[in-house]
């Protein structure tokens, strides 16, 4: 089903791709940045032509993309199984909220809060990343299901700790945040997140991460510092979950520990596996499809919450790789990593080598 869905998607986008390919290279070079700016302008003016409800849906889509893409790093690219992503989201949400509600006003910065919002998000992200570091150190001493158990416990601990700190509202929750998250802000953070994660994925660390999923022993035997890679990736994922948490807090303007329960983590898992492991494009797709689907299923009321876990079970059984598993949209691949660039480089190297030395005695491709 998903394979045909993928080919269906490539079929409907084929004319656009053909048109794009026919453009001269300098135009192609600038297509993506220009498109991103155009979308930003549209997002900026979204409040004037999209109603509040759909603005909120769009914002949730964006937040979920950030959550999904970052979790995909751990569960998809690295092949570990982290189930407590909402815990990091909670850390980011509470820290950012405390900053904008208490800290900034107390420092007499009340009127600058909208401008300080990105800073609050960053600090929230860093706090989440730091907790990620604390979790990662003991968890990655062993392998496999262990991480799932630790992150599950982590999620529950965060929830009950928050419920028991009365200063930040305990189980009643924390409020007083301004509505700072807008479609435009979320859009910017999504673009930044995807861009940074994309760069990471196509780097030494990204390849190291993939190699851990493929064969951890072989990975360390070709010089990959697997412990360092695992911890790094986990912290990066936690950081972005924290950012998403901050954005989330400043759209619903009221957070309570229950917003970050294991159910929320499950949602993110569903989006990761629906979109496809090891694919940022898949995460964008998975988060969008799932978020919109849940909105459309509102008439089902409580039964709606059956959809997620059910979908997760079905996906794991029938389509463990998801819609875009291990594949990437062409435009997401850095120019220097695209097949034709690699082929051209190979050709150049071959010509250069032919002029100097003999290749290994491998008798062509007789096998």
């Amino acid at each position, binding site marked *: 089903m998903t394979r045909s869905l993928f080919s269906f998607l490539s079929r409907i986008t084929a004319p656009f791709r053909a048109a794009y390919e026919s453009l001269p290279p300098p135009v192609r070079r600038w297509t993506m940045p220009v498109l991103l700016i155009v979308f930003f302008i549209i997002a900026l003016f979204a409040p004037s032509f999209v109603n509040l409800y759909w603005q909120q849906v769009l914002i949730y889509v964006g937040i979920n993309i950030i959550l999904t893409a970052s979790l995909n790093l751990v569960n998809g690219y690295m092949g570990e199984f982290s189930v407590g992503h909402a815990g990091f989201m909670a850390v980011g949400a509470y820290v950012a909220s405390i900053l904008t509600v208490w800290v900034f006003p107390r420092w007499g910065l009340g009127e600058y809060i909208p401008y300080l919002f990105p800073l609050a998000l960053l600090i929230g992200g860093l706090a989440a990343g730091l907790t990620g570091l604390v979790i990662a150190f003991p968890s990655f001493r062993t392998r496999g299901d262990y991480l799932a158990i630790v992150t599950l416990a982590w999620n529950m601990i965060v929830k009950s700790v928050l419920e028991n700190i009365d200063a930040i509202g305990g189980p009643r929750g924390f409020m007083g945040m301004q509505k700072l998250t807008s479609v435009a802000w979320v859009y910017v953070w999504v673009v930044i997140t995807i861009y940074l994660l994309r760069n990471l994925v196509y780097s030494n660390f990204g390849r190291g991460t993939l190699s851990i999923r493929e064969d951890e022993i072989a990975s360390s035997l070709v*010089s990959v510092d697997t412990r360092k890679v695992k911890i790094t990736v986990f912290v990066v994922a936690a950081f972005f979950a924290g950012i998403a948490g901050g954005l989330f807090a400043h759209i619903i303007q009221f957070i309570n520990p229950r917003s970050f329960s294991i159910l929320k983590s499950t949602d993110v898992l569903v989006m990761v596996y629906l979109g496809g492991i090891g694919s940022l494009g898949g995460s964008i797709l998975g988060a969008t499809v799932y978020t919109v689907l849940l909105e459309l299923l509102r008439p089902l009321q409580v039964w709606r919450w059956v959809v997620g876990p059910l979908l997760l079970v079905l996906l794991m059984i029938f389509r463990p790789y998801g819609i875009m598993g291990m594949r990437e949209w062409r435009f997401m691949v850095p120019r220097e990593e695209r097949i034709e660039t690699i082929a051209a480089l190979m050709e150049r190297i071959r010509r250069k080598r032919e002029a100097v030395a003999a290749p290994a005695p491998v008798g062509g491709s007789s096998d």
Partner: protein
Amino acid sequence: MPVLQIRGLTHYFGGLRAVYDFNLDLEPGELIGIIGPNGAGKTTVFNLITGVYRPTEGEIFFNGHNLVGKRSDQIVSLGIARTFQTIRLFKNLSVLDNVRIARFARMSYGVPAAMFRLPKYVREEAEARERALELLELMGLSEQATWVASSLPYGMQRRLEIARALATEPRLLLLDEPAAGMNPGEIAELMELIQWIRRRFDLTIILIEHQMRVVMGICERIKVLDFGETIAEGTPAEIQNNPRVIEAYLGEEAVV
């Protein structure tokens, strides 16, 4: 001075003695073979050298570094690379990525440099890409650089594994039964390849082989293991006529 010095290497799996009192002095540029019947402890020796297991007893020195207690990736970045008895490529990744991953320790940029595409990242990545492609070209895998590793035919997978090992820029290469599963034609080609990379990359090589005749052709010195113990050591000619070796092999043959 020897590249690799192993003294009294002993390893137990629970009560099972896998390797007992293994000693080795390896001079730079040597190509030695370790042979022995199944379960003789040959692969365990490689696993002990590369830090997969920590030896129960014994010392391993590589160019003056004590390897015991070091992590595998640290040992590899000191200049020891290996291949595996059963091919262990990163199957779902491209041929190029398989080789580039092995350059992990040779790259020094950090996560921020990667995320923001700082000059250091761009430079090191460009270098890694080029080095990896050069290596693939040398190993006759240039057409397949963008293929998924699992789609390569068997012989090429073996070659890719060697290319990946070479990408770590080793001084010492450990080859674990590289001829396993190959037909006589491929084996002849492989023997030629091993001698070629040894010259080209100025390597010291330890070759594990199950089949005696493979090692006889290319190794200067052979050690024979049986039940974890070194039962013979010497030139191919000496080994061929050693009664203990014949017994170990015939004994195994009789069981089979």
